[in-house]
Every structure is written in structure tokens, then in C-alpha cells.
């Protein structure tokens, strides 16, 4: 069929219509990506969960599990003589107290051990042997007393202390938090935005316009890559600066890993959001998928702690693969080839979820 408009009116219209601008900013993909950014930046809660929360968590856990210099133990001695002997041991803080006060301190846990003289020239230690502090205090106190009394150790020994960055809990934790954050931000940002747009019939309005549909999805991936730079940078920068967490692998490999992980989770998020019409339904689905991964995937403790029978399933979870790969890069300096199994799992999840999402996706 031919164009039905009156030709000369059409010509006049064309003169009046401004042709589409050629500038970069006029491209629909650029505009859609800008929309993603604006919606994200104008949502203070999202900013908190994506940027501030992981830092607070890292800081909190880092402080709680920090490697302190060997702790000094408080003990009580009831005679000046005992106190003098015990003070030879630098790891003991000795309080010389009356018996009654010393017993009170022991009972309330202010001191881990009470040393008193027994009948004859014996020394009696009172402590709780189920308490590690009590046992350690006993070993230290007895060594100090015996040495003061003239014991000589038959074999000379020396200590080598390990407090190297890279083997502490915070080093283990940071890649775990990074993986968890990559998962959360990809799934939440995609899932919520899409379901909200469907609920508001905005998706339907967009497909009623000439918007190329794949641009809509691409805008999510593009904005995700750009936000990743900030998300990953903030968390790793913070960890490196305040906890001296080393990044031993190549930064380029790390970037590739982060983008790949994020896209796998985006595909999962897209699948979860492909049909849901309400935020409640979508967040229920997302929680069902994400929560079981937080524990076994090794965010906070090694996934090896689970029984062997569960290991194949745990290893197949996308979050496990992501965290294992991140740890291998950050802590062991492994290259991408060494992470082939993990990368394979991520690619598998990405391809399967994406294919299913495209099959199930509803614009209305």
C-alpha cells in the first residue's frame, strides 16, 4: 500500500520536523542508559545498599575479626612474692589482690586465673579449664613460676610469627563480599526496575513506541558495567586502603571476572523478572534464589565446611563460582585460564538464564 498522506502536506511536514539529531546523546541507547543512571542515583536506598552497606559490613567484620597482637591475660596473685615471679612473663598482667577480692575478680571474669600459696612451698592455681583463656593463663603462669624457681628449658626454641596480609579473615571476606554485592546489585537493579515498569504499564508504553526492544535490555547491561567500576572500585579501594588487602592477580582479569559475573547475575535477574507483575512477587522470587546462596557459597566462611555430598551442588551455584574465582584472582594471583571451571559455570548460567528469560519475557 502506498503512503496515504497528502504528498505536499507530507513535504511541508518534513521541513517542519527536525530530523533526528546526529549527536551521541540523541541515540536511544544513550538515553535509555541515562534513564537507568538517573533512576538509580535518585533512589537513596539503592545507593545505600550498593555502596555504603558493603563498606559497613567489611568494616564491621574487619574490626571484629582483626588480627590483634597476642593478647595480655589478666591474672591475680595473692602474695607479693608470687606477683613478682609472675611479672617476669610479659604476656601476663598481674594484679596483686587480697584473697577475697581476687576470688571476686576470678568469679566475674576480670582475671583468668588466681595464684595462691598452698601448704608447704606449693603454688595453687585456680582457673576454669574449659575456658581457653584460663588454660593459656595456666601455661604461662606455671612457666613463669618454674623459671623463676630456676628451671632451665632443655631445648632452645624460637618463634616465627605469621601476620601476613592475604591470609587473614578480612582477606578471605573481601572477595566474598564483592561476589555477594555483584549478585545483589545485578539481580535487584534489573529485577526491580523491570517489574516496576511492567506494573506501571511503562513496558507496554515503551513497546508501543518505536524503541528497539533489545536496546532496553542493553541499557541495563551498559549501566551495570559503568556502575560496576564504582561499586568494585569503592569496595576494593576501601579494603586495600584500610585493611591492606592485597590484589595479587591482574586487574584486567579481575575486571573481566567482574563483568562476566555481573552479566551472569543480570541474566538470572532478567529471568526472575520475566513474568512477575508485582514487586512483592518479584522480591519473593529473588530472595528464594539469592538467600540460599549466601550461606554455602562461601561469602563468610569456606564452602569446604559443608559435607562432601553437597559439594557438587555448591560448586555449581553461580555465586560459588564467582567467589572462588574472585578469591583465586585477588588472593592467589591466579590467571583466567586457571579459573576455567568457574568461568564455565558462570557462562553456563548466563546463557541458560538469558535464553529462558527471552522465551518467557512479557512486556505487559
Amino acid at each position, binding site marked *: 500500500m502506498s503512503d496515504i498522506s497528502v504528498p505536499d502536506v507530507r513535504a511541508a511536514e518534513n521541513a517542519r*520536523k527536525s530530523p533526528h539529531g546526529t549527536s551521541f546523546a540523541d541515540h536511544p541507547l544513550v538515553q535509555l542508559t541515562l534513564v537507568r543512571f538517573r533512576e538509580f542515583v535518585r533512589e537513596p536506598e539503592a545507593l545505600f545498599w550498593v555502596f555504603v552497606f558493603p563498606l559497613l559490613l567489611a568494616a564491621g567484620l574487619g574490626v571484629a575479626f582483626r588480627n590483634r597482637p597476642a593478647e595480655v591475660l589478666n591474672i591475680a596473685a595473692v602474695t607479693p612474692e608470687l606477683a613478682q615471679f609472675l611479672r617476669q612473663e610479659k604476656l601476663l598482667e598481674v594484679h596483686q589482690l587480697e584473697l577475697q577480692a581476687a576470688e571476686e575478680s576470678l568469679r566475674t571474669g576480670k582475671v583468668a586465673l588466681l595464684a595462691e600459696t598452698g601448704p608447704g612451698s606449693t603454688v595453687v592455681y585456680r582457673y576454669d579449664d574449659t575456658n581457653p583463656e584460663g588454660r593459656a593463663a595456666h601455661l604461662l603462669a606455671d612457666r613463669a613460676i618454674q623459671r623463676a624457681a630456676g628451671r632451665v628449658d632443655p631445648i632452645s626454641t624460637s618463634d616465627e610469627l605469621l601476620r601476613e596480609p592475604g591470609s587473614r579473615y578480612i582477606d578471605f571476606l573481601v572477595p566474598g563480599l564483592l561476589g555477594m554485592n555483584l549478585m545483589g546489585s545485578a539481580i535487584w537493579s534489573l529485577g526491580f526496575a523491570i517489574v516496576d515498569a511492567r506494573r506501571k504499564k*511503562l513496558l507496554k508504553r515503551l513497546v508501543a513506541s518505536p524503541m528497539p526492544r533489545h536496546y532496553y535490555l542493553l541499557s541495563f547491561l551498559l549501566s551495570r558495567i559503568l556502575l560496576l567500576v564504582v561499586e568494585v572500585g569503592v569496595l576494593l579501594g576501601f579494603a586495600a586502603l584500610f585493611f591492606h588487602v592485597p590484589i595479587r592477580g591482574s586487574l584486567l582479569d579481575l575486571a573481566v571476572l567482574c563483568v562476566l559475573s555481573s552479566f551472569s547475575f543480570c541474566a538470572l535477574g532478567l529471568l526472575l523478572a520475566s513474568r512477575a507483575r508485582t514487586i512483592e512477587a518479584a522480591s519473593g522470587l529473588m530472595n528464594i534464589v539469592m538467600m540460599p546462596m549466601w550461606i554455602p557459597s562461601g561469602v563468610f566462611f569456606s564452602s569446604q565446611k559443608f559435607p562432601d555430598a553437597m559439594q557438587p551442588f555448591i560448586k555449581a551455584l553461580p555465586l560459588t563460582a564467582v567467589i572462588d574465582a574472585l578469591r583465586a584472582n585477588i588472593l592467589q594471583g591466579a590467571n583466567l585460564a586457571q579459573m576455567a571451571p568457574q568461568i564455565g559455570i558462570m557462562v553456563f548460567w548466563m546463557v541458560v538464564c538469558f535464553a529462558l528469560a527471552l522465551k518467557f519475557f512479557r512486556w505487559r
Partner: protein
Amino acid sequence: MPEVASKSALRIRHLRKAYKDVVAVDGLELEVQAGECFGLLGPNGAGKTTTVEICEGLTEADSGDVEVLGQNWTSSSAQLRQRLGIQLQDTQLSEKLTVFETVRLFRSFFRQGVEASEVISRVQLEEKQKSRVGDLSGGQKQRLALACALVGDPDFLFLDEPTTGLDPQARRQLWELIEEFKKSGRTILLTTHYMDEAERLCDRVAIMDHGKEIALGTPRELIASNCAEHMVEFMAGSVSKSLDVPALRGIAGVRDVRTENGAVLLQVAELHTAVPALLAELIRQNVPLTELRTHSATLEDVFVTLTGRHLRDE
């Protein structure tokens, strides 16, 4: 070029669409001429939105043909999208974007169109350009939706209940904007369940009920052919003396009589003969008149005459 001007912008043949248990559109036939403002009028559930969404390429029909601007959705969907301006029923645009950002986004989808700022001033939202969509009033949101439909400089504008839920002032403002677009000589398909809206804006109207077209014509034609020109509404009678309604049919010039909530409605051709005759009849029956009103017949009266129901009953 008169032969071009009379071409149809939309042609619907044997259109049928059923959902699980309801037939939404039942063998609809419709033709909209290029350059006219065509109204689809009907109660909720009449099938208006389904029809419009099939025309917009958003819903697939079970059977039937739809030709928009001489093209169909299966072969020329991309070209058609560029030429249509669409406003859907209750779309909520992103609340966190500003008015300008929203229009700019929609502008980017069209190869040709009007600058975002120009469309915004056309719908009188210049002062709100930098406001968040979430801060706009209902009327302003509808005008923004209209701006998003106009930004591609469409040849055919689809408006699905554009003023539902708006206050009278906001409705009038939107009507003026639609009339402004009409002047450019392009085509509009409008659905509404407000008769005054259809009477004011539409060149021709199709009344739909249960998925079918039950009347078609200009608003004046429909009123003239389906009921007499004027309506007389009165209340008469008392507890002791009730009105003999059937007797009223005998009055010269009365085409139809019906009662509604205790009031009697007469369709009459000419007020100046019918009203004196009515008064004479009431005196003859010896019933007191308590209320008397007259109005020109509206599309609402047409609908009631055709279906026995009111447009907004459902």
C-alpha cells in the same frame, strides 16, 4: 487532492478477540478516514481498549484484518511505529525522571519528530520541565503522556481514555490540546466513556457495546436518528394521585417515554409543542407537577435508547 483526503487511515474488518471466557471484540467492522477525529464510545468492558490495542499493534487479534495508514502490523511494524503517536490507558511514566528527560527519551526513539522543548511548550508544561514526574498533578501527567505521544510528530494519534479521572478544568485543558492537534489535519482515534468529550472532539463516533458496533455516525446524526432532538424530564404526582404514564404516549410529538428513579423522561421532536401538550395532559389527569427540566438529547441518551442502559452503569 480530494481523492487522497478521502482515503481511510484505519480499516478494521471482521475483527474478533476473545479472552479466556469473554469475547472482547466480536466481529467489529470500522473505517476511520484520514484527517478525522474518530471516537469509540462505550461503557467499560465494551471492547474499546482491546480494539485500540489491536490497532496499535500491542495485542494480536484472533481473526480479522487491521490496516493502519495503509499498512499492516505483520509486514510493516517498524515503519508504523514511527508514524503513530500512542497514549495508553493509565501508563505511569517513571516518577524519578523530569518532564524534559521523559520527553527527550521518547524523542530519541523516533527518526523524525519535534524537539522535546517544543512539545513540552505545546502541552503547556514549560514551567514544569525540570520537575520530577512524580510531583505532577493528574492533569499534568496526562499532558506529559500526550507530549510523549506527539514527540514523534505522528500521522495518527491514538488516545485511550485521555481524560478519565481528571477534574473538569484539566479535561478542558486537554481537549484544547487535542483540538490543536486536530487542526493540523491528522487522524485521531479516541476512546472515551464521556459523551460530552466525544460530542466536543469527534467528527464521527462509533458506539460499542459487548464487542460490537451498535451505532455509527456524527454525534448529531446519531442523536437525530436514534432519538428525538430534545429530552423532557419531569416529576409529577403524589401519594394519593399517581401519574398515568402510558397515557403520555398519546401526546403529539412524543417519541418515547420511560421512567427513571421516579422521574419521567420524554423524547420529543419539538419543545414548543410538546411542553404545552404535556402540561395540558397533567391538568387533565389532575396530577401536580413538582419538577420540570429539558435538555438537548446527547450521546448518552442515544446509548440509553439503544441499550436501555447508561454508559457508566458498569
